[in-house]
């Protein structure tokens, strides 16, 4: 018992170190956004500004291109998330519960993309979407990534764990498979849907290479594209760049804080272990 206070202190220090190193870059980005043009590059460096000046934040929020990029990326991410949840959970249910011809072959087909890195097909996917006339549209950002072997697999693992008795009762009462899916499985899917949905939203919001390949029209610029271009074109306005970067990450931080309970426990329902 003698070493208990010491152990507690050590734990406390360790927690502090971990938390600070995890949060430091984000905090610094947010704080640097409050610094003036010369202050942000001042040597010797200072962590906090002399005067907290919101000019950078006001200026970037007053930039219609930034606001438009945030809005259009948000809209795209919402549509993308809803479509992926639909497409992947339909397939997940069919593979978890239904019995049908060619099931094994179709399963192999749907799971194969798990082993295909995006860059292996980057160029030919580009050819496909340009032949389909999808370049410079929201569709090119949304549609190609909707079907996801990983998400389907994740949701299926969860469905396999739902007890059969629930649907047997319903089916004896004459419910169709579709009714079983919408009335029994969907209401139970909240936890996996949050985990998978947040992952979809993140993937869409943070995508960079695909948007810069397929989008030329400034009206459709995605937020990462905006930040990347800003870095290239006005790279020395660091205060402004930090403010914009922080604001671009803010929606995701908020989403994670809202759904933190589901996310940090998400790996447990994945059936990974």
């Amino acid at each position: 018992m003698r070493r208990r206070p010491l152990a507690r202190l050590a734990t406390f220090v360790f927690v502090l170190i971990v938390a600070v190193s995890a949060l430091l870059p984000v905090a610094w980005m947010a704080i640097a956004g409050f610094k003036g043009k010369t202050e942000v590059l001042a040597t010797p460096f200072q962590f906090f500004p002399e005067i907290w000046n919101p000019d950078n934040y006001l200026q970037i929020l007053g930039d219609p291109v930034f606001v438009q990029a945030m809005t259009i990326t948000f809209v795209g991410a919402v549509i993308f998330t809803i479509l992926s949840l639909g497409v992947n959970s339909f397939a997940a249910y069919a593979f978890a519960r239904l019995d049908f011809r060619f099931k094994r072959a179709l399963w192999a087909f749907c799971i194969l993309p798990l082993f295909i890195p995006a860059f292996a097909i980057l160029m030919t996917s580009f050819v496909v979407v340009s032949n389909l006339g999808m370049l410079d549209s929201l569709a090119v950002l949304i549609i190609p990534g909707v079907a996801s072997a990983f998400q389907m697999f994740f949701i299926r693992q969860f469905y396999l764990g739902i007890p059969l008795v629930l649907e047997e009762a319903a089916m004896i009462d004459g419910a169709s498979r579709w009714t079983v899916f919408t009335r029994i499985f969907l209401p139970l899917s909240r936890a996996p849907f949050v985990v998978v949905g947040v992952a979809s939203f993140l993937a869409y919001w943070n995508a960079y290479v695909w948007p810069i390949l397929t989008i030329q029209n400034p009206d459709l610029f995605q937020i990462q594209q905006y930040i990347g271009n800003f870095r290239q074109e006005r790279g020395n306005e660091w205060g402004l760049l930090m403010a914009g970067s922080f604001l671009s990450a803010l929606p995701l931080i908020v989403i994670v804080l809202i759904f933190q309970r589901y996310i940090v426990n998400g790996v447990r329902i994945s059936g990974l272990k």
Partner: protein
Amino acid sequence: MSGTHGGAASAGVMPVTAVRRRRLGSHLRDNRTAYLMIAPMVILLSVFVIYPLGYALYLSTFEISFYKDPVFVGPQFYWYVLDSPRFWNAISVGLRLAVMVVPVILALAFLIASLIKTLGRRLAGFLKTTIYLPTVVSGVVASVVFTFMYRSDGGLVNGFLGAVGIGPFTYLSNPAIALPAIAVPAIWLGIGVSTLIMLAGMLDIPETYYEAAELEGAGFLAQIRYVTIPLLKNVLLFLFVTGFILAVQQVDLPLVMTGGGPVDATMTPNLFIFTQFKDPTPYATSFSLTVALILFFVLGLISMLIFRLVRSDKAVDG
């Protein structure tokens, strides 16, 4: 078909045929529902994944030009790629990045997960969310922030080092330090998920194992060595391989931070593919695509093996 035997069958057998017929009926209904439910997935994957893969395989073995029919050239592009020093440089950069990133992530995640396990519920919840938070930051934003942190004027890293009288250093323009400088944000971005997965694995180890080990006189380190690590073997292996595959494929960080430079010191395989893809010289696209396919064969094989391993192990464990 079953009707021919139905007449000869006793009354007791009749329900069996009826049941069989009903099962066949519901089976047919399953077929339709099932096909409707997987159709969107199968169609989307066909158009945007499987077809592009087949098309890539085709393009990598045929020489395409505007004025001739495509000519089958077999593995010629593959030999050409395997002969290119820039290809091997990219592979080496990818491997070195993975070697810098993955072991550090595994070690830190192990340490942090062990710590979280000992904490009370509220503090554990706080630390889990905190460690996960960097995961949501995009590669582009992480690149911008770390580029700024590495600056010689106004940069945080040189600021801290300067406070103890070292530096200032340049990081991203120095070929010897640029890659480690990119490894740091890669670790920062990747550690959250690994920690949470590792923690989930640790929580699955029954507490009785530790009690038994303690009765045998095993100390803290001995418990880690003889209980935690052996029982966490699969999780560690999974995290090692997936982390490795992700690190080799890193592209956003070098693309925004260095553009692959200085002198190709941070030209990861995917960045190499990307820059070749945008290169207008003839056959650059075929070249880029072949590089991508070679990478796909190797990484795909590794991930398929690991998938088998994890799954088969699960089947054995029950």
